[in-house]
């Protein structure tokens, strides 16, 4: 059982966060994860239990390492892509994701104000739909 893992877990979780921030959860297969993360299927299951297990780890890491530090320094520049996608797509179906999103949005409200947070999220959503020249 205690077989050594020949990969950097933190690095894999960070890469998974980037992947989950870019595409819909259902649009990412285990094949995609194996290919993008360079980790064997068996190791993925052994380490994270399931695709959802990896998703949760990735979301929590992203919030702790990317979003919260930005909230402290410059809330307007905080990365929101993963957060927006998770809020729209996974939070309604997954209570643990909903808890994470609710918590981080409350932190935004505190760092900015509820109105500013709402405006920021709205702007970022529109920016996603606007082609960059």
């Amino acid at each position, binding site marked *: 059982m205690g*077989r050594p893992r020949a990969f950097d877990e933190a690095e894999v979780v960070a890469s998974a966060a980037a992947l989950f921030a870019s595409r819909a959860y259902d649009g990412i*297969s*285990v*094949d995609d994860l*194996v290919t993008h993360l360079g980790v064997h*299927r*068996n190791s993925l*299951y*052994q380490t*994270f*239990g*399931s*695709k*959802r*297990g990896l998703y949760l780890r990735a979301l929590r890491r992203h919030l702790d390492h990317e979003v919260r530090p930005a909230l402290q320094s410059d809330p307007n520049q905080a990365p929101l892509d993963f957060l927006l996608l998770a809020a729209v797509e996974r939070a309604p*179906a997954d*209570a*643990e994701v909903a808890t994470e999103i609710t918590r981080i949005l409350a932190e935004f409200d505190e760092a900015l104000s509820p109105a500013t947070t709402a405006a920021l999220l709205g702007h970022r959503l529109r920016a996603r739909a606007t082609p960059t020249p």
Partner: protein
Amino acid sequence: MAQINIDGDNLIVEIEGWDKLWALKSRLEIPLANVRGATADPGIVRGPRGIRTAGSHFPGVLTAGAFRIDGEKVFWDVHDPTKAIVIQLADERYTRLIIEVADPRETVDRVERAIVDGGRA
């Protein structure tokens, strides 16, 4: 094809029909505490299965029974790859169950939800 149910604190996996013969065991009962997760994974059948230790394997038709790969024991029961799900276990005879279910998405959601709820109880 397998039927998956949650009964109290247990996950019940029942292998239906003729697969019972091939897979040797028709019913597995696993405490939810030992279930680490469930994932729909149609691509897994293209990977290596390992060495068959019991059951049957007709390449391209049916994989059913116990296999050993990388020191892990894996239970397979899959005809239709598109309906394969992977259930990862801890402290059980099998490290992983790779089984076919009627509705992979619904089954995976149900199992994952049961684990979360079990963890809170």
